[in-house]
Structures are given as C-alpha cells and as structure tokens.
C-alpha cells in the first residue's frame, strides 16, 4: 500500500520535474518559478471548479498555465536572456515571489477549499485492511497518461525530434532552418502546463495554499539533481525513488537506535538524536539522498552533463 502511495506521489513529482528538466537542458535555465506554475494550476483549477465543476478545470487550468508560461518566456525570459544566465535566474526567482503575491491578493493568505470531486471520492479497493482511495487511482491514471503522451510526442513526431535535437545542439538546429526561439517558447509553455496539471490533480489531494509552491519546489529540485540535470529518464527514476522514500519512511516507526542495532552497533542510550524515529527524519531523507548523489555521482543518476 505504501508502495502504491509512493508511486502516485512519485508520478506527480515526475510531472513537475519533467518540465523543469526539459526546460533546463534545452534553454540552460534553472526555472526557480517552476513550482509557482504548479501552484497556479491548483488555484486556477479551484476557481474554475467553483464556477463550472472539476472536469472543465482539469482541461482548462493546465492550458491557461501553459499560456501564462509561454507569455512569460516570450516577453520576459527572452529579454532577460540577453543579459546572461544570472539575469535569467534572478528573473525566475523574482517571478516566484510575484506569483506568490498575486495568489495572496486574489485568493487570500489561507488555504482555499479545493476539493476532490464527489464522483472520485471514495475507496477504490482495500488491501491488508488499508483503503486505497479512488482519487489516488485517478492521479495515477492521469500521470501515466501524460507520461505516455509525452513519450509519444518526443519520439514519434517531427516537433518531438526537433526538441530532442535542440536539447543538445540548439544552434545547429537553428542553422538547419528550424525556428528555435519558437520551440523554446513551446517547451517552456508545455513544461509549465505539465506543472499546472500536477497542480490541478495535486492541489485537492493535498492542500491548495500560498505556501504550496515553496513546499514542493525544493523537492522538485532534489528530484532533478538526483536524476541528473537534463535527463527525462533520470527524472522519472528519481521521482519514483523519492516518492517511495518519503511515503515508506513516514510509515516506519523504528528509531535510529533500532537501525544501528540491526547492523549490530549499539548506540549509547539517552542521546536525543538516537531516539529520533525514521518518521521524524522523513522530510530530510530526500536531501540526504541529494547530498549522497552529489558526493558520489555529481552528474546525477542518468545525467550527461559534467556541470
């Protein structure tokens, strides 16, 4: 059951990190505002579902977020690009704050009541006396559908081939007559639309509140670093891995003393640290993993870049 929960969470993380890693490897931009688009997706979906119900929002909110993303690339980032990478980083950094402030202004500082639609509320099946909610199954379905669609787009279509080629050699692709700036805009729009979709289906499973971007943002960066900057396959493996680590560790109540006892080392009694349980450590485990990866394999699991 933890496994299923972990995979669901991992797939959601992948929906976020795939866009981030695509944008990074193609444009060289580490988009600090990526999680803000996730938050926008959730708020847009909340607003649309308040007017017309959940299903139109599922479709419209990611498209809106993607359109906002494309506009940001076209009229903001492209200008900042002329002044180099530092300017781009600062731009996305500022954008993250801007989005948060806009959310404060429009929807207030407390969580909004964005709920799972009634028809998806309930139990899909029970295993070992634990219920698996329908909505988790729905999240999995949407994520896997998106994964397959992304794969088909990148490997089976002309635009996908151009994107793949432009990931490593944008200048050559442009010299062959392809409008690379437009491809950049599409990739940025597509990547942010994926983040928006993650927000739509994640916002009601968790909480839709102004802090949600910051909460998920750092984890998404961990995923991308662990998987290897610019690698979709790496981002996928790292997403599932971190999804599972987080859900499994929450369910484990053994303490550090127990872990060391398992391998035959007795820790001195009475130490505060030794009595911490794995559950209490859960939030920092992904970061520990990132540090371990950076020490032992700096380019990430599947990364090809040295830097």
């Amino acid at each position, binding site marked *: 059951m933890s496994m299923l929960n972990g995979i669901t969470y991992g797939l959601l993380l992948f929906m976020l990190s795939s866009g981030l890693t695509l944008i990074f490897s193609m444009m060289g931009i580490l988009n600090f505002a990526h999680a803000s688009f996730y938050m926008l997706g959730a708020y847009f979906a909340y607003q649309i579902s308040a007017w017309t119900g959940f299903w139109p929002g599922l479709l419209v909110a990611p498209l809106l977020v993607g359109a906002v993303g494309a506009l940001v690339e076209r009229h903001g980032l492209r200008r900042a690009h002329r002044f180099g990478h530092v300017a781009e980083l600062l731009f996305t950094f500022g954008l993250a704050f801007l989005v948060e402030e806009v959310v404060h202004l429009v929807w207030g500082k407390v969580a909004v009541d964005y709920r799972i639609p009634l028809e998806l509320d309930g139990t899909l099946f029970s295993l070992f006396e634990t219920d698996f909610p329908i909505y988790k199954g729905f999240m999995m379905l949407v994520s896997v559908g998106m994964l397959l669609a992304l794969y088909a787009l990148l490997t089976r279509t002309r635009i996908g081939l151009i994107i793949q080629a432009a990931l490593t050699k944008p200048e050559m692709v442009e010299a062959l007559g392809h*409008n690379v700036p437009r491809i950049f805009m599409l990739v940025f729009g597509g990547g942010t639309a994926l983040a928006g979709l993650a927000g739509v289906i994640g916002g009601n499973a968790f909480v839709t509140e102004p802090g949600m971007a910051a909460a998920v943002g750092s984890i998404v960066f961990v995923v991308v670093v662990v998987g290897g900057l610019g690698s979709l396959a790496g981002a996928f493996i790292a997403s599932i891995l971190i999804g599972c680590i987080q859900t499994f560790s929450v369910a484990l109540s053994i303490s550090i003393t127990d872990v060391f006892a398992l391998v035959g080392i007795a820790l001195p009694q009475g130490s505060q640290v030794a009595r911490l349980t794995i559950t209490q450590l859960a939030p920092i485990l992904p970061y520990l993993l990132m540090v371990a990866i950076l020490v032992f394999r700096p380019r990430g699991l599947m990364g090809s870049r040295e830097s």
Partner: protein
Amino acid sequence: MLEVADLHAYYAKSHVLHGVNLRVDAGEIVCLLGRNGVGRSTTAKAVMGLVTGRGSVRFKGREILGRKAYEIAHCGVGYVPENRDVFAGLTVRQNLMLGVKDPKAFARGETRWSIDDMYRLFPRLKERDGTAAGVLSGGEQQMLTLCRTLMGDPDLIMIDEPTEGLAPKIVELVGQFLQEVSRRGISILLIEQKLAIALDISQRLYLMGHGHIVFEGTPADLKNNEAVRKEWLEV
C-alpha cells in the same frame, strides 16, 4: 549568389573579421583557405547569422545580414559546421529528416534531394539507417552532416573543413561528392586549411589572414605564387 562586402565581426571585445570581401557565383565551388584562427569559420557563421556581424551579406540579391539563422536557412543557405554536429541520440534517418525545412514540399517530392539520393551517394549511410548517429565513425558522421544540410534543399552550402581528420580514401570520396553536388547546380563555399582537395575541385579560391582576404585567384594562380603560399598557408 552570395556577395560578402566589408564584413566585420566580434567575439565579445575581440575584433575577429576586419572587412571580409568575397563572392560565390551560381554553380561555383569556391574555396576559403587559411590557417587556424584567421577567421574562416567566423566568416561562415556570420553569413549564417550565428555570429553578429557588421557590413553587408547579400544572398540572391537580398541583404541577409542581421536576420535570424533559421530565416537565413529558409532563404536557401546551408551550413555544415566543422565539428560534425550530428544529433547523437537520433538515428541516421531521423538526422536526415531534421534537415528537411519544408516537410510539405518534401512529401510532395518538390525538393532536389530525397533520402534515397543520399543513400545512393553514400551506401554506408543506408546500411546505418536505423543506427544512432553518435556511434558512427568520423567519416560517416561527416557524410551525414553533409547530407542532412542538403536535405534542406539549399542553393548554396558552406562547408567547414569536411576533410579534417579523415583517411585519404574518404577525403577523395568527399571531393567526388562535392563535385556531384555542384553538378546539380548548388554553389559551394568550401572552407579548408590544407590544399588537399581545394586545388582539384574549386574554380576560385580566397586566402585569408588576420581577419581579411589576402589573396584571390584560381587554383593555378595559387600554385604559381609560392611567396603567398609560404606567408599565409604553409607552416
């Protein structure tokens, strides 16, 4: 076809091209010779719009300097870079298809070259059709980048050091291929460091030194002018 006049270019603050003048007429093979670092590649990149330049570059009578690289490509200029920029993860066929600029015209058979043409000229590529381009040999990658640019149906191609690091037999093959391309009415600006194939296949040549043209003439002129060769070409 191509007229470059008083072309200047800069990398950051260093002034790389100091007023280059050259021209390539329709159906001609013209060679741009010179030692490393004199600005030959920069000239090609500036014409292609990959490096910012100042001056004038006219193609088929239209000014193209200052336009975007993909627009210049659509005007009919093809560029084969010196580092054999194949898309390593894609197959040979996918690489060739990415050279196509106008898929509709290509599907209707309105372009000069088809994939089968390429495979007839280079049977090695046909055998490697489904192979990832990254695992091809240097010679095969060179053929692939040449063919990929031709798939875009250019009227002029600029080729940067196609024979660099290739075995003599392959160099000969590349030379024959360029002549075949030229017979089909495509103008060629060949950038070379050595005289290898330049003297045999080009109609005219330019010699470059320190960012401008220092000699212009036929292959015979250059053969007879030992002083110029010594000063600007031979090591």
